[in-house]
Every structure is written in structure tokens, then in C-alpha cells.
């Protein structure tokens, strides 16, 4: 049986840069409107000249195709994984399929009731009790009241919060909160389920439970689209996988093949291009790899591997490796010489350098590696013109929710404890 459950035809989504994050102030619109006549005047003037090409490219710079010409079909009862780096368009695709946002062009068809789970606990209100939040959250996810009542006990026991069901959720521990929220979500019973990286929450035991539940749903002839950075989860649950890169479908097929190819491309090497060449050296290859798998997460054990050739004899080479943000803000740097002496290189010889970082303290986001290559004896200090990009993927760094860019760049190896002081308690609570 191969009825189609989801069919996308040429889906594209364009964002104006900045549009996603900021709203307009009326003032800006008024200013723009005031300037507009002059702008069109300037445009008509430049039409006679030759500035049109420039203008066109200025427009292109302000827009971004988060999704470009995405077409695929998913059969009923299939569980399909979606993978790709941050910004590949995974979330945009899910948002379109769950009707939160509209595509710019193209269309999609979905057969059956759609349930989407892009975030755990959407609409939970801290002041309401667990019981009240189950009903509220269920209604938000599109469940009927009768349906929620029927599944109420099942949800509560899944979440293991029986004792606290009439306590406001603001008094819940983060674990309880997440369990309850996830409990409601997995008990909605749509024909097509769209799930974003929500399996990354909770403790390991609970994650396993969620996985089992997902597999169970998948077996029930439900169609599932699952976005995850957790490759082993995708391998276990999904038969087919869709890989996205910069808004386009780069691969769609059996999970094992797609993931293998994706992993190979993530641990990518630099082609021996001109931009990785200095006067004395050529950087043949750069790799940033994690010991825990192909994607790099905060606090992973990470190795930065460089293969460098010398164009001439170098008596005392040295390598400087800096980690910076894409806007060039240097976060930290390592110099080979501080750890060990590099051997002398003769022309054409290849040197492999490996910087091992036991626990990478970078929070999720894009980073770059900049390299300086040094000939200590020859007083040559050469900057490699291009930087090498890599990415720390989003994950629940501290065991709770996913950490995003608002938390800065540096992950802290921290513990936090909260306690009420006995005496103060008596005073502040009447």
C-alpha cells in the first residue's frame, strides 16, 4: 500500500532579512514613505546611467530563501527523518507543513489530520495546575475535550506526575514540566505528525520512553516527519530520510545512505583551493570532529585536525589556530608551540597537526577557525586568507531545554542549586 500522505511541490519560502526578528515601528514606515519619492527619482535618474545592476544586487542581499524549490512525497504510514545543519530550512519546512507560516511559492498537500509538535509545552501557563494545563495544552494542539478526558489518566501516568496533578506547574521541577508537556503531545492522535527536535529534552530514561512511544505511533500506520540532530534516533525510527542544505533537498532516500553521506559532508575537508594557501604553506585539509559522533555538540571532546604542506624548507614551523564567531570576534586560540615543538619540514612534506579539546565549551551556533602559519626561524608569520567554518549544533546543553544563541557563546560547566531559607520562609509566607 503506498498512498501518499504528504506531497510537496516546489515549496519555497523567502524571508526579508531581519523580518523574522524585528517588527517595524510606524515611524520607519513614515520615514520610508517620505523618502520613497526621492528614491524613485533617483532610480529613474540611474536608469539613464548604469547603476541598475548594483541596485538589483542590493535587493537580493536583503532577502533570504529559507527554503528553495523543495519537492518530495511521503507515503502513508512512513516515518521520515529530516536532517541538515542549522539554517538548512528544516524548521521552516515544518512550519509550512503545520500551517504556521505560508510558503512564498509552491504548494503542499496533506491527507489526514495534521498534528504538529514544534516545541514542548506550547501554551503552558505557569499559574495553572497540571490538570488545567493538560486541557489547555491539549486544546491548543487541536484535541477535543472529550478526547483529552479519555486519555487523561494515560497522560498523567506517562508523565509520572500523579501526585502533583493539582499543583500549579510553576512549582514543578523542569523534568516534571517537560514530561507532562511531552505526555500531552504524544497522546494527540493525528494521522500525520510533524515533530521538531523535541526528543532532546528530559533525562535519558525519559528520552527512551519517548522514543518507544514514537515508534509505537509509527507502527500504527501514522505518518511522521521527524527533525532531529540525533542521528542514532533517526536511524532507529526512520526508514527514509530527507537531507536539506541551504533550503534545498540534497538527498532523499533510505536512512542509512542519507545519514552516511551527510556525516561525510559534515566532517568535510577543504579542497586545496587558493584561499587556503599562504606564501610558504598550503592547508590541504581541515577537520573538526567530535569523538561522540559526526555532529559537534557543546562539551563534546573535539579534535581540530590540520594537514599542511610546506612549499619550501621550514626549520621551525608553528601553527596557530583561533576559534572565532562568523563576525570575526576571536574567542580563543591555541598555538602549537605552547604544547610541543613541531618538527622541521622539507619542501613538499606534509605535517599533520591535531589540537584536542577535552570538552569544547562552545554553545550552539556557527563558528570559524582561523589559522596562522609561522616559520619561526625565517620570521615569517602568515595568515591563511580563508577561515574554516564549523558548527556546534543545537542541543539541550544543560539537560533541559535547547540552548540557542541568546545564551551567548561560552558554555559553563556549572551546577545550580536553589534552596529556601527556613527563617525567611516564615516571614514571607503569610
Amino acid at each position, binding site marked *: 500500500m503506498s*498512498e*501518499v500522505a504528504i506531497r510537496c511541490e516546489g515549496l519555497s519560502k523567502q*524571508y526579508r532579512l531581519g*523580518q*523574522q526578528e524585528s*517588527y*517595524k*515601528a*510606524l*515611524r520607519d*514606515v513614515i520615514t520610508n514613505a517620505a523618502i520613497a519619492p526621492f528614491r524613485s527619482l533617483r532610480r529613474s535618474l540611474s536608469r539613464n546611467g548604469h547603476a541598475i545592476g548594483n541596485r538589483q544586487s542590493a535587493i537580493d542581499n536583503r532577502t533570504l530563501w529559507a527554503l528553495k524549490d523543495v519537492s518530495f512525497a511521503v507515503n*502513508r504510514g512512513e516515518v521520515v527523518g529530516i536532517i541538515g545543519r542549522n539554517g538548512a530550512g528544516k524548521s521552516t519546512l515544518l*512550519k*509550512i*507543513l*503545520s*500551517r*504556521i*507560516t*505560508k*510558503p*512564498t*511559492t*509552491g*504548494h*503542499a*498537500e*496533506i*491527507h*489526514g*489530520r*495534521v498534528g*504538529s509538535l*514544534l*516545541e514542548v509545552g*506550547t*501554551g503552558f*501557563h505557569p*499559574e*495553572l495546575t497540571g490538570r*488545567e494545563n493538560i*486541557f*489547555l495544552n491539549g*486544546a*491548543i*494542539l*487541536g484535541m*477535543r*475535550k472529550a478526547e483529552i478526558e479519555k486519555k487523561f489518566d494515560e497522560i498523567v501516568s506517562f508523565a509520572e506526575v500523579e501526585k502533583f496533578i493539582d499543583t500549579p506547574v510553576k512549582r514543578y521541577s523542569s523534568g516534571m514540566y517537560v514530561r507532562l508537556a511531552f505526555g500531552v503531545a504524544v497522546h494527540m492522535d493525528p*494521522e500525520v505528525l510533524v515533530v521538531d527536535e523535541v526528543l532532546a529534552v528530559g533525562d535519558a530514561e525519559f528520552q527512551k520512553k519517548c522514543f518507544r512511544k514514537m515508534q509505537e505511533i509509527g507502527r*500504527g*500506520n501514522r505518518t511522521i516527519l521527524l527533525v532531529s540532530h540525533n542521528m542514532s534516533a533517526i536511524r532507529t525510527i526512520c526508514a527514509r530520510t530527507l537531507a536539506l542544505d541551504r533550503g534545498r533537498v540534497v538527498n532523499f532516500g533510505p536512512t542509512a545512505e542519507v545519514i552516511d553521506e551527510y556525516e561525510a559532508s559534515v566532517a568535510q575537508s577543504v579542497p586545496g583551493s587558493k584561499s587556503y594557501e599562504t606564501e610558504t604553506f598550503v592547508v590541504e585539509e581541515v577537520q573538526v570532529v567530535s569523538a561522540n559522533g559526526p555532529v559537534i555538540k557543546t562539551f563534546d571532546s573535539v579534535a581540530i585536525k590540520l594537514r599542511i604542506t610546506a612549499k619550501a624548507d621550514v626549520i621551525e614551523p608553528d601553527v596557530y589556530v583561533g576559534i572565532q564567531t562568523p563576525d570575526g570576534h576571536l574567542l580563543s586560540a591555541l598555538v602549537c608551540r605552547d604544547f610541543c615543538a613541531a618538527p622541521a619540514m622539507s619542501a613538499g612534506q606534509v605535517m599533520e597537526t591535531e589540537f584536542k579539546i577535552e570538552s569544547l565549551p562552545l554553545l550552539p551556533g556557527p563558528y570559524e577557525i582561523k589559522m596562522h602559519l609561522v616559520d619561526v626561524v625565517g620570521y615569517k608569520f602568515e595568515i591563511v586568507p580563508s577561515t574554516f567554518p564549523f558548527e556546534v549544533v543545537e542541543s539541550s546543553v544543560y539537560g533541559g531545554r535547547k540552548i540557542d544563541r541568546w545564551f551567548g557563546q561560552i558554555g559553563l560547566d556549572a551546577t545550580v542549586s536553589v534552596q529556601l531559607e527556613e527563617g525567611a520562609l516564615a516571614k514571607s509566607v503569610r
Partner: protein
Amino acid sequence: MTSPNTNIDGQTLSTLVIRPPSSWTSIGFRELWEYRELLYFLTWRDIKVRYKQTALGAAWAIIQPVFMMLVFSLFFGRLGKIPSDGIPYPVFTFCALLPWQLFAHALSESSNSLVGNQNLITKVYFPRLVVPISAVLGGLIDFAIAFVLLLGMMLYFGIVPGWQIITLPGFILLAIMTALGVGLWLSALNVQYRDVRYTINFLVQFWLFATPVAYPSSIIPAQWRALYGLNPMAGVVEGFRWALLGKSDSPGALLWVSVAVVVVLLVGGLYYFRRMEQRFADIV
């Protein structure tokens, strides 16, 4: 596809088609009806949460209109000698303050509702109209509480409403529809232009003085009175006085002008909202 799509239980599956934004969309009453339970739960949440962690709780529903009544009675009634159509001034103004509070609350809540619920809007699909509508309905509880006080005051002053009281629900509906009509426009605008937030307080204050809350509409020259109905709240307030206190004349032409204005505001608001709604998640 040869066989029709059916689900596990053999029922035919609904088909959902997702397309780029279009400039004209239907209001989607059918879908709104399907989501009536969500409307109920969101309204219930707003009511439930409103007076949590307040010392006075639901008493706030009475405190505000009562203090306004006292201030108005003292300054406009006693000192300003504003006429009140032969009705004791406190009842006269309190009877108007009730629908006014209902309206003012509904207007500001609904205008801020989309921005206040942006976490929902960017994460879950549901008909967006549910949000401002539930914000408007949430004020009805406060209204009901204050209404009991009004009945007590009428008893004290020995005012017995006549048959006109049966029209009261119609005026309550008109107040809500006025708030929703304006709220739809403002909430959709607020998503894109946060200036709206700062306009609302000002708008409500201004509107209060343009509405016959502290004074009777009979002080407006008769030939201008129908025009005064362009402010739909004038129709609502006069309607309330007529339905409950019975002494002033029926609002007549003024009321019909108000109704017409509300219909235009509401229908326009619905279409504008539906049109803007397609981009809410991208710009909020």
C-alpha cells in the same frame, strides 16, 4: 491514485492544501466553529489567571468602576451640576460605566492579544481569530460581577426596570462587537507596528470623553444626535440606560447609526485580519 484515501477506521481522510498567501480569504467561520473548544479554554485561562496572586482578587472587577463612579458623581454630578435625565447621578453614571469598562477592557486586551500570545502563534496552527475573540470574551465575568452591584444600587434608589430590560443582551452584544471590530484592526496592526500598544491608552481615554458616560446624550443638540451615533459606544451607553433605568427616551436613530458603524468595522476588521494573518508568524 486509484483508491480513495481512508484512515485506519475506514473514514475518508480530509485533504489539506497549503498554498502561498492570497489577498482575499473567507472568514472561515466553519473552522472557527471547529475550534470552539480552544476558544473556550483560552477565555477560561484568561479569566482564571487574571486575579491569581492578587490580594483583592475579583474585587478588582468592582473597585475600578466604583471609584470612577465616585469621582464622576463628585465632580460632574455634585460640583459640575451635569444633568442626568432625572436619574440619581451615581446610578446614571454607573449604569454607563459598566458597558464602558467591558468595552475598554475588551478593546485593550484584544489589541494586545496577538502580541501577548506570540509563543502560540509561532509554534502552533489554529484559526488566529480565536485569540482576539477570547480576549474580548474574558471581560464578561468582570462585567457580570459589577452588574450585581448595579442591581443592588437600583434597588437602593428604588428603580425598577421595565420591559425594556429584555433588550439588554443586545446592547451587551453591541458593546462586545464594537470592541472586537476595533480590536481586530488594532491587534493585526499591532503585530507589525508596535506603536499600537502606546496608542491604546490614549484612544480609550479620548473615547471615554466622546461617550455619554459622565453626561447624558440629551445635552447634544437634537439635530446632531444621530451623528453622535457614529461613536457606537454612544448607542451602547444610551441603550443601557434606556433598558435598565427606563427614564430616558429610546435611543432611536442614534442606535441604528451605531449598529451600522459596528457592522462596517467588524466586517472590515474580519477581512483585514484574515488577510494579515497569513504573515503573523513571520513578523510578530
